[in-house]
């Protein structure tokens, strides 16, 4: 038996149609000689189509999941972010903010602030998948997509304001989110933040099982389990 692409299978089980038979179909096709690229294409299209459909069917729930994700990540930063990033930079590199204003050495803070920011994104994703299941996967996709759109908007805003004023405006309270969109790292941050949300969420997302059991072959015909 060929080894299935593990990550693609995890994507299908967590973000695809919550149906073991669907995974069985993909396994059967893969065993009959389909390529890894084919398997990945099926996994991603399953995640995307299922998410679009579930979000469309539950718009209020998706909106609540997005608010929860953003709220959690901002709250984590406001309560812990700046303090943790300062503390970590001081502990690792003997860095302090007062000296940084004089010397202009900010890289230790940038590193720890990014670590704290991305950990916050991961934790907020876990909050979304824990609070909104089922279907956790599509709600996670909604949150990741909203973060991608939010960061694109932040990047464009920063770009426009920087060109107009010559300075990089960073509202302090939104630093946590906006920092990943800053000019020197926005290209990585734009994709990295949603990717971390997806990966952390995938780790915390429950894997699909058969939600209900229609009768086995030979039994009377049953409606679809997801009906």
């Amino acid at each position: 038996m060929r080894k299935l692409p593990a990550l693609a299978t995890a994507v299908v089980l967590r973000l695809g149609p919550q149906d073991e038979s669907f995974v069985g179909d993909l396994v059967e096709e893969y065993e009959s000689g389909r390529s890894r690229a084919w398997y990945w294409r099926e996994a991603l299209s399953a995640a995307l189509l299922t998410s679009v459909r579930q979000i469309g069917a539950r718009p209020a729930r998706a909106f609540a999941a997005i608010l929860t994700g953003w709220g959690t990540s901002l709250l984590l930063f406001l309560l812990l972010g700046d303090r943790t990033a300062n503390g970590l930079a001081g502990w690792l590199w003997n860095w302090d903010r007062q000296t940084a204003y004089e010397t202009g050495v900010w890289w230790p803070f940038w590193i720890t602030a990014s670590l704290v920011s991305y950990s916050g994104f991961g934790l907020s994703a876990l909050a979304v998948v824990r609070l909104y299941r089922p279907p956790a996967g599509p709600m996670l996709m909604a949150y990741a997509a909203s973060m991608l759109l939010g960061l694109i908007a932040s990047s464009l805003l920063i770009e426009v304001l920087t060109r107009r004023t010559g300075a990089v405006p960073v509202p302090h309270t939104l630093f946590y989110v906006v920092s990943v969109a800053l000019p020197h790292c926005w290209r990585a941050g734009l994709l990295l933040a949603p990717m971390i949300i997806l990966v952390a969420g995938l780790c915390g997302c429950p894997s699909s099982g058969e939600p209900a059991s229609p009768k086995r072959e030979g039994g009377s015909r049953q409606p679809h389990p997801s009906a």
Partner: protein
Amino acid sequence: MSDRFLTDFELMVILAVLRVRDDAYGVSIAREIEQTAGRSVTHAAVYLALDRLCRHGLVSARLGNPTAERGGRAKKLFSVTAAGLRAIRRTRRAFIALWKGVPELKGTPV
């Protein structure tokens, strides 16, 4: 019971279920569409269409036996219900009615 019309893709899927008959499950339905209609489809799109048809009572599903080649997972076998057959006829009538009387399509077999 549903009086809805089928979308073009739902029509393809439900016709494929009819054509494949006893062994209509995700893989065989997708292959039937690709081979007969020449349309490339993803399994997810087929599954979601089948799920929608099931919810409207146009198709019914039952589980087969798990097999090793599927990693121990069972097939979900589909069949068209009486309501599904009515929906196919209703949709066909609607398409034919729209088809007729279009000068650009005159002479094209229905």
